């Protein structure tokens, strides 16, 4: 698994709530059998006009969004389908950090498996970041998972609240399966105790 320690990057603000995984990566791109190459299809329906040309109004198509690696959004980001293609697409596009007041459970979990850091802040803090992202262009943030601090160059600071074990795994880039297999004897023991041994 990819690790995440600290990241400084440009922020793109997406003033939308309930951004669902069907929007992040529409189904027609789920037919691929690889994990890579989904970035070019990110937010496909929003990013283009009906004739296939880029939609100039779409947040990620703005000139100031070029090269952004931190995505700022409203509540319930990543709701809907369990497709891990959504974090794959965000990561492949270049995002390392996503900030929102809340995330859907499955999406939140999937981010950690792909070396991306989803950060939950209060509604007020998120609002503050939206303001700052319009005041300062370009606007950059630093997410330091080690010290658990999110900050900008203009005095903003917020604590990154993350479950200690997830933080540990992400900092080290630990492989979940390898970790679990260290307890393989326990799994066998469980199977034997429950009459599940083959």
């Amino acid at each position: 698994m990819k690790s995440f320690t600290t990241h400084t990057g440009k922020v793109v603000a997406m003033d939308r709530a309930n951004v669902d995984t069907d929007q992040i990566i529409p189904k027609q791109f789920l037919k691929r059998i690889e994990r890579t190459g989904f970035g070019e299809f990110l937010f496909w329906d929003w990013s283009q006009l009906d004739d296939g040309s880029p939609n100039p109004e779409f947040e990620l198509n703005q000139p100031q969004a070029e090269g952004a690696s931190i995505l700022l959004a409203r509540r319930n980001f990543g709701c809907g389908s369990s497709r891990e293609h959504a974090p794959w697409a965000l990561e492949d596009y270049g995002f390392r950090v996503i900030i929102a007041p809340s995330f859907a459970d499955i999406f939140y979990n999937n981010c950690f498996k792909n070396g991306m850091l989803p950060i939950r802040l209060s509604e007020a803090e998120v609002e503050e970041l939206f303001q700052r992202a319009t005041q300062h262009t370009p606007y950059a943030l630093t997410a330091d998972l080690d010290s658990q601090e999110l900050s900008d160059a203009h005095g903003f600071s917020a604590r990154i609240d993350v479950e200690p074990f997830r933080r540990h795994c992400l900092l080290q880039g630990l492989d979940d399966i390898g970790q679990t297999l260290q307890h393989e004897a326990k799994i066998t023991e469980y199977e034997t105790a429950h009459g599940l041994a083959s």
Partner: protein
Amino acid sequence: MKPRTLFQKIWDNHVVHQEAGRQAILYVDLHLVHEVTSPQAFEGLRLANRLVRRPERTVATADHNVPTSDRSLPIADPISKQQIDTLRANCKEFGITYYDLNDAQQGIVHVIGPELGYTQPGMIIVCGDSHTSTHGAFGALAFGIGTSEVEHVLATQTLLQDKPKTLELRVDGELKPGVTAKDLILYLIGQITTDGGTGYCVEYTGEAIRSLTMENRMTVCNMSIEGGARAGMIAPDDTTYEYLRGRKFVPKDFDAAVAKWRELPTDPGAEYDKSLVFQAADIAPQVTWGTNPGLVVSVNSHVPKPADFSDTTEQKTAAAALEYMGLKGGEAITDLKLDRVFIGSCTNARIEDLRAAAAVARGHQVSENVNAMVVPGSGQVKIQAEQEGLDKVFREAGFDWREAGCSMCLAMNPDKLAPGERCASTSNRNFEGRQGKGGRTHLVSPAMAAAAAIAGHFVDIRDWK
């Protein structure tokens, strides 16, 4: 012992290992696999030289990406074909049971699991699909997982989990005539909103839930994720056991299994982290008007306006939803005219759903402005419907009768809406583009969908003659 909830009992029964401050390692009894979220997981196993730990606890089928037209023809889309071929080859290589397209038991994974008796009370069931919550109807803890987790389960038969909180949604009293399980769950989602269940495992309780059939309970649990809850469950009871008795993969000593299952329901006095109570009598047939399932109203009311919402984020969400849906706000729901009707999906494509829709359609004609299709949830549902003559009822009324699969629920196969088309759908998601780019989806019950197909606009099923 301290009284425990159904959830707590299943959780306790499955902890393989737990260290303080870490996620629990939970044992998985049943892992369902489909073509879209599994290829990268199998590839991961191969790269790391790992095997599937318990192939006999893993069951696969192709459903999301399969054509629902003539199955004797080759699949026209080469990338879809490759994905299905890949699943077939992976199952062969790793020794997993696979229900192929031409198998009479093929179908939507959440329809065939219960139908074949794989789904049982007290189990932990996972699948790389968010509607795995469906299986919670049997008193199982069932939830969707991502592809990395699919690989983890394949390799270890376990899953790492943070313990969710518990949320009781209790519905007292009886549903009124014409009001179905679909209306009940849409109403609940409307009340708690699309993320009200985030971080929780829901248990549905109360008289209105207890009196539902198994298939109706599946409809309710299926949509738990649309309220943000990864899992939704209903305590097993005689309705559950009678449904399961005699199914292919239930335990051989069925009575002994039932005796064990009877210990599962929540103990009197057990506490949930949160409980909400609703009255069944308050629920009317529901129709969604927006672009998430929480944006829903009663059929006899009007599409709301952004100003009807209190907070600015909700106002913006409502305004964007109205624009996408081609609505202004204020329209009577029954004035909305339809182009398409879809009866299908893991929410509402079981035999009882098809019977309910056929009862409405019998002797009527689909409006000439509407194109309507019925897609059974599985090969078995299709066969049974044909034995009961439901296919004839639908065909004579002008509905298209298709092969089993997910079809226009997610429009990954050729069944999809054209931009701007308005559709009454019995599926579970009305997200932008879900049924085709620019398509406008309104979620309803099977009976409401059938009535809308005939009238050409929404009708209050309670007035249907």
